[in-house]
């Protein structure tokens, strides 16, 4: 999942839809840079250098693991959101699914490694089920995705409130300790989970489904005419996204170790911010999951850097908003320069 792998891979799946739409796609280096995660990765490295300069201990295994633990929930949530955005949709149910998983884990804690595995399957099942409902509503009943997922989000929030009507409960100790810990004292488990998802995505992107996903996002009628099963692709996308939200809920629960029926709400808008920061086009068909993960990591790191610079936490949002606008303007500019050449 190095930079080179994503930038060179970024051009391949998007070639099909853009070729279908407007002839051969321009192949400028700058243009390809924005397709992958180059821009946002550079920003992240820059920010991390600043962080390490302020806090010499930032390069400790402990500090890295702590940062990874903070990053993982938003990164996984943004990864799921990316899938839906690539298919030219919006998924608001993200907040509901994460809250629901968190509450279930806090009210029904399952101890031990076996319990943790079961909990993970439970989260995947919850996310997958909500995703299936979303997919059915959007792909088969043709509801507008933002409206349909708004409804499922409200329903999931309601179910979460029924299960646990106020913050409380305890997530099982095994999940809270092991999923936030380090393997062999060095590799953060939360980072591994995110890396596994990114690795899986790099494989999936090469499959027929991956190509179809980019194709329906870029130009749905063209994709349908070239034999893509639009409905099934869209359905699978929502289910996959839901399962990623489930994982995000699991990692969030591991990090907070307690239940809160509204725990997913702050991640709703931030997931869109991470996707946009990663350069994924909100009108579908362009971008990638890895870039969104780095976008999420950047938003999280920004909070840490601001905190260690002594900026009042009141103004975190000011910087997040400005970085978001600047990144989107800049990546749009690069794309336009690239397309002109």
């Amino acid at each position: 999942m190095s930079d080179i792998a994503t930038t060179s891979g970024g051009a391949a799946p998007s070639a099909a839809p853009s070729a279908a739409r407007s002839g051969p796609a321009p192949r400028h280096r700058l243009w390809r840079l924005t397709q992958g995660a180059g821009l946002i990765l550079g920003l992240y490295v820059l920010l991390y250098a600043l962080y390490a300069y302020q806090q010499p201990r930032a390069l400790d295994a402990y500090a890295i693991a702590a940062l990874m633990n903070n990053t993982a929930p938003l990164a996984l949530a943004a990864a799921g959101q990316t899938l839906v955005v690539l298919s030219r949709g919006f998924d608001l149910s993200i907040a509901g699914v994460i809250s629901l998983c968190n509450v279930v884990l806090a009210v029904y804690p399952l101890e031990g490694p076996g319990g943790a595995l079961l909990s993970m399957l439970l989260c995947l099942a919850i996310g997958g089920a909500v995703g299936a409902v979303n997919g059915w509503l959007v792909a088969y009943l043709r509801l507008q995705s933002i409206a349909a997922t708004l409804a499922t989000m409200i329903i999931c929030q309601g179910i979460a409130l029924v299960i646990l009507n106020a913050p409380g409960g305890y997530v099982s100790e095994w999940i809270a300790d092991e999923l936030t810990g380090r393997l062999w004292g060095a590799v953060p488990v939360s980072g591994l989970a995110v890396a596994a998802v990114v690795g899986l995505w790099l494989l999936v992107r090469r499959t027929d489904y991956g190509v179809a996903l980019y194709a329906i996002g870029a130009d749905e009628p063209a994709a349908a005419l070239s034999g893509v099963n639009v409905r099934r692709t869209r359905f699978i996308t929502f289910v996959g996204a839901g399962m990623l939200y489930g994982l995000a809920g699991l990692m969030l629960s591991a990090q907070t170790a307690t239940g809160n029926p509204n725990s997913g709400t702050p991640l709703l808008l931030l997931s869109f911010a991470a996707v946009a920061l990663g350069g994924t086009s909100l009108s579908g068909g362009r971008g990638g999951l890895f870039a969104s993960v780095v976008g999420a990591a950047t938003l999280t790191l920004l909070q840490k850097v601001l905190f260690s610079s002594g900026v009042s936490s009141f103004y975190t949002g000011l910087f997040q908003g400005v970085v978001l606008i600047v990144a989107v303007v800049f990546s749009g500019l690069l794309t336009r320069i690239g397309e002109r050449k």
Partner: protein
Amino acid sequence: MTAMNENPTSQARFQQSGDTRRSARISAETVSTLAVAILCVALLVGARFISPSLGSWSQVETVLVLGSFLVVLSFGQGLVILTGGLDLSLPAVATLGGILATNWVGASDPGAWYLLPLVLLACGCVGFLSAAGIVWLKVPPFIMTLAMSIIVSSLLLGYTKGTPRGAAPDAAVALMKGHLLGLPAPVVFLVAFVVLGWLFQSRSIFGRYLYAIGTNVEAARIAGAPVTAMRILPYVISAVSAGFAGLMLVGYSSGATLRMGDSYLLPSIAAVVIGGSSILGGRGTFLGTVGGAILLTTLGTIISAIGLEFGLRTIIEGAIVLVALLLLREELFQKLGSLWR
């Protein structure tokens, strides 16, 4: 809200001339606006069976007063959606309006007559900044208004140091708590607002331009519409109306909080969508949106009057949004429309 008639949809007849499906479309819009209105009345009357205290005239007044915030907010949201955008900064701007009103103006400041317009001007500036980013920097509306929302909230947090002070201006209190012509003042205001809003959106040249731009920007440009100005206008109006809703909220609850706008974001979108507008722009009427807003408020008050626990109430609300979306699907009305012919 029974005053909805078929006039606004006859407007759509002219905008969509040339579309061979226009007869089906008109009937779809008329029917969905009427369906929402009938559903509102049926719910209010039907509520009597649940509890004798419901369905009375005083309950209608309560619904209209509580619904007035959402109507004002979703007027702006509806205009933005009409041009193919989305305004996520409404809650932040509403909070801005409320907090500036309590901080700058206070209870009985003799300068309120020029300070309150200044508050609305400040809100309008936020809308103008969003529009500037969207029109000139080409940032997608979703991202731009999201970023503005994060920025404004963070600035408000810093400005108030986390605890808003000050009292509601007398004018705002008079608007929300006073009586006029034997009716609560907010109800009179609501009727006036709905008439003005309807005149603006469906009867004025500005409204026509907005429909034209939402349907096809390039076509509107060629036809000589002032496209740039008309793409900026909705965001400014939306921000000013959000700021006004903030004033109303402050007048109603006699004080400002930092999260007072938060619960109105998703309802403002839901009201527009349930009212029969397309989230993609170019279609929908303000009367439909008003119906959507009143319907959501009616449901909210009835459900809270039943006395269910909060979680169950939330589930029912979500389910109702879903059912409304399913019932108001365009295809369904096209089918119904073709049956009548």
